[in-house]
């Protein structure tokens, strides 16, 4: 089936060419980072995780969101998702690949990465994260590829694949739960230490992932003859609305607990993210994430309004805008604020701000483009197979 990815028009090849050149640029910057050390990034002793880990965290969510298609389709026999479930699974493959790449780029000694397997450590959450992420990648590759292959051959998927399908459902929840555990089990990091971190991760994931998927599906409709169908898209919109509302509800809970309890440790990071935090000693106010976080809130509200209004929801142009706003709102919230904010202030209550370096940004873009490259290839194959199968039947 893979040969389908080798046939395409000029637009397809120029898109692939663009992705490859961005990947090359990212790889070049990575070589610089590998030789110099992670000091080439904007990370510091006080903000010891940066863009890489925050992108990783966000993308675990996008990967997990495939379950919002798999579950209704396979468990509740929701037929309308039959045409796009594979697109969700392939999005999960691309996202998990990005996650793994982001972890690798973040390691100080990437060559020793296998130490995690050579010295298995069940009391480390990172060990479990390694297991659930690789397991999820495996499940989606198997399920997605087998399902597509049977469609290619005009048969039903073999029976043996169903246990993997059902396993992938709780597994999707597990990847984001374990990723939340990375943060919420750390003493002395007040902002992360909240029991609703895992549910909040899941809620934002189930809004951001389907939002991206709708954009992709509409792009596919524009550039090929493959149409996912309005019913499927409408169902996804419903998922986004509820997940988005629950996410904002959770954010509200965090704000209430922080500010009503009036416990300084619980307010510091919220202050830093939304209003700016003054330094103990100098009185200088640090606020470089405030514009971002406020934009995130505004985008989220506008997006929910657009989704909520029937007129805008049914207009595909406005629908794309709503989805994009939701996706970027949550990307800022989780892909920037959550990880970076957790380090401000540090355990000794010093404030250090983080600004990514230029090579760091290019490496990040390179990884994103690698993900989109994988996604492009997989979608090309899937859509070619599906349109051919439909033409034949």
């Amino acid at each position, binding site marked *: 089936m893979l040969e389908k990815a080798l046939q395409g028009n000029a637009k397809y090849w120029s898109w692939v060419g663009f992705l490859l050149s961005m990947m090359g640029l990212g790889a070049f910057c990575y070589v610089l980072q590998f030789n*110099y*050390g*992670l*000091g080439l990034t904007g*990370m*510091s*002793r*006080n903000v*010891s*995780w940066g863009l890489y880990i925050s992108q990783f965290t966000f993308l675990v969510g996008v990967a997990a969101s495939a379950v919002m298609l798999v579950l209704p389709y396979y468990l509740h026999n929701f037929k309308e998702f039959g045409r796009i479930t594979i697109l969700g699974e392939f999005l999960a493959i691309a996202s998990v690949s990005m996650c793994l790449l982001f*972890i690798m780029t*973040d*390691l*100080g*000694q*990437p060559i*020793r*990465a296998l*130490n*995690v397997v*050579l*010295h*298995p*450590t*069940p*009391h*480390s*959450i*990172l*060990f*479990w994260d*390694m*297991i*659930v992420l690789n*397991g999820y990648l495996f499940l989606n590759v198997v399920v997605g590829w087998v399902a597509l292959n049977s469609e290619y051959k005009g048969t039903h998927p073999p029976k043996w694949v169903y246990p993997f399908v059902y396993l992938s459902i709780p597994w999707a929840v*597990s990847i984001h*739960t*374990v990723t939340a555990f*990375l*943060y919420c*089990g*750390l*003493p*002395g*990091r007040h902002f992360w230490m909240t029991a609703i971190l895992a549910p909040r991760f899941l809620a934002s994931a189930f809004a951001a992932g389907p939002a991206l998927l709708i954009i992709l599906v509409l792009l596919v409709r524009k550039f090929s003859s493959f149409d996912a169908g309005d019913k499927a898209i409408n169902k996804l919109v419903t998922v986004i609305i509820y997940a988005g509302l629950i996410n904002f509800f959770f954010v509200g809970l965090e704000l209430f607990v922080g500010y009503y309890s009036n416990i300084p*440790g619980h307010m510091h990071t919220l202050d830093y993210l939304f209003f700016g935090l003054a330094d*103990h*000693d100098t009185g200088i106010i640090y606020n470089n994430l405030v514009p971002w976080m406020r934009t995130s809130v505004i985008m989220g509200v506008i997006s929910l309004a657009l989704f909520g209004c029937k007129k805008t929801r049914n207009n595909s142009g406005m629908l794309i805008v709503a989805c994009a706003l939701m996706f970027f709102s949550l990307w800022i919230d989780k892909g920037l604020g959550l990880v970076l904010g*957790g*380090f401000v202030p*540090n*355990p*000794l*209550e*010093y404030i*250090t701000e983080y600004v990514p370096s230029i090579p760091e940004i290019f490496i990040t873009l390179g990884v994103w483009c690698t993900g989109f490259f994988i996604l492009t290839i997989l979608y090309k194959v899937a859509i070619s197979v599906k349109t051919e199968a439909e033409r034949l039947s």
Partner: protein
Amino acid sequence: MDNKRRKFLKIAGLSAIAGIGAPAALNMLMKGNVQASSPHGHGDDHGGGHEEAKGHGAHHGEVKQGKRYGLVIDVHKFNQTPGLAQKCISACHDTFNVPDIGNKKDEVKWIWEEPYTHAFPEHSHYKRNTELHHLSFLVTCNHCDDPPCVRACPTQATFKNEDGIVMMDFHRCIGCRFCMAACPYGSRSFNWRDPRGMKDGKPFIKKVNPEFPTRMRGVVEKCNFCAGLLKKGLLPKCVEATGDTKAMVFGDLNDPASEVSKVLKSHFTIQRKPALGTKPSVFYII
């Protein structure tokens, strides 16, 4: 080798089983952490260590056996002897080839000075005596009895040794920096760049100790309580540097007859962030 493989297979098998249920994983996590309801864990300024040294406390869960090295820092003695803290820092950093990178971002440090407000941010700073605010506190790795960094490390590159010292195995560290996020004391430094490098013709390592290696870029490092020297019956370098000022007292917290236990019994001491349940082994007489 065979034994190792068997151990690996065992752990891998167990892991796979536990992986199906997150509760199992959680249980493993919580092991040894169940003392949260002990009467000493609630943020009172007295260190939990006093009581543990006596070994009582049936509802503490298990009482830790074996050695547990600890350190008492007398802040007033440091205050009375100007330059003493700096002497301790140099003694440490020169022994372990700790680089002085020269900027806050890439900074590497094992022991350093902090004002009261930053060493003890969880304490009230309102209307405290002025002397306190002029004091500086030496801070370093607390060699916690329940170290969060050890829990977090995915390769056991950081681990607790048989003397209760939280060690770093630089050979094994993959540089994921999970331990840095986990440490509530900011005691860990990452080698953001090659510590053997230099800037403007000046090397980061100001004095080379040929008996200890340097580090490489991409690994985390921190104080090791001079584990190697202790085995030779010597004191940690910082303690040695205080001479006979008694500004630092070092010894086995689990030995009621040790000097450090006696000092703790007869003085009011505080620990950093006792409410977190990490049970720090560094105490301060203020």
